[in-house]
């Protein structure tokens, strides 16, 4: 068993990360899940949230993703994100823009699913805003 997980984060526009890490915490639709070496094969949808990359026991990187699909198999974790931005790159102005866009989507949402997505997006963005510089 390998002692690292090969982690790939890809968005349609480019490959953002491809590295060996100790653990990844993925915000799955049915709850966050951590991926360690030897994890059982899983495919899960991803809700808007923050993906945490662990090197050793500390968080080395946090990446905000707007949703997508995660696949875990054979010590590989591949996250197909709709859009991914490192949390460090998000400042208050950018977060404000995103919150506004999400609120517009919430107002325009017709189905429960859309409403739920918009609501979780707003919640996570507010949380990020509170900790942002």
């Amino acid at each position: 068993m390998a002692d690292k997980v090969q982690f790939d984060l890809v968005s349609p526009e480019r490959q953002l990360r491809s590295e060996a890490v100790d653990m990844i915490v993925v915000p799955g639709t049915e709850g966050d899940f951590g991926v360690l070496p030897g994890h059982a094969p899983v495919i899960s949808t991803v809700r808007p949230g923050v993906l945490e990359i662990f090197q050793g026991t500390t968080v080395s990187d946090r990446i905000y993703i707007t949703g997508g699909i995660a696949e875990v198999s054979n010590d590989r974790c591949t996250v197909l994100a709709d859009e991914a931005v490192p949390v460090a790159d998000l400042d208050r102005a950018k977060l404000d823009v995103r919150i506004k866009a999400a609120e517009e989507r919430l107002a325009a949402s017709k189905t429960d699913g859309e409403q739920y997505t918009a609501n979780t997006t707003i919640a996570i963005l507010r949380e990020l805003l509170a900790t942002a510089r």
Partner: protein
Amino acid sequence: MPSLKDLKKRIDSVKSTRKITSATKMVAASKLRRAQEQALSARPFAEHMSRVMGQIAAGTPKTDDMPKLLAGTGKDDVVLVVIVTSDRGLCGALNSNLMRNARRRIAALLGEGKTVKIMTIGKKGRDGMRRDHGSRIVHSAELSAGKVLRFTDAQAVAEKLMAMMAAGEFDRCVIFYNTFKSVISQVVTEQQLIPAMVDEGAAKQPGEASYEAEPDESEILAELLPRNLAVQVFRALLENNASFQGAQMSAMDAATRNAGEMISRLTLSYNRARQAAITKELIEIISGAEAV
């Protein structure tokens, strides 16, 4: 025999044409690099996507309530043809080649008694198809004016396709675009978008354990299929963009070279005409002097 002044004018006009073509060539060359990079960096996502798709689709039991995007409507009467072209010309036969292929396909489909609907992406396609298939064009999309293609452009197209699918406006959807092989070679590609083509080979990799799905297969499939559609469209757009820049570059390169040849030819006849005029004047002076 054109006069000296006429020749001079023609030389000047060809020179300014050459300036334009060589500038366009430079612009295309620099844009090509970016377009190529973009097409390349989009590839991992598409690859991972088709792998996951294959695995999920293989794990899902084939039932009647399969998503239409994967299973189709069960009929094959109405075909939507999506034609991806560039917004601008000056790229040789790129767009006309594509449209010739598309027209042939449309004619074949019509011959089989099917109904054909057309969706164009890019100005050239709309203008080119309007003449003989104007009534069949159901939607014309234009890409955002921005320099860089964004995924949202593809998403907008995919959403439109899904809305039409949901309304039962077509049974099958094929897309025509140019695949970028190299600067001098672009290949017209026809690809079926709906029902989605699942790469069955990718699904059966040895040693791959079966997956646990969260929430469950059908829900993931419902999320995955629209994304897959958008990704396929995005790839078509990127490939076409790279093809366009490549074709424009080589077309403008040839045009610049031709203009250069033309200039040297015209300059030669200009000089000849000038010499002839001088000789004629000299003869006139000399024979005038002799007569005295």
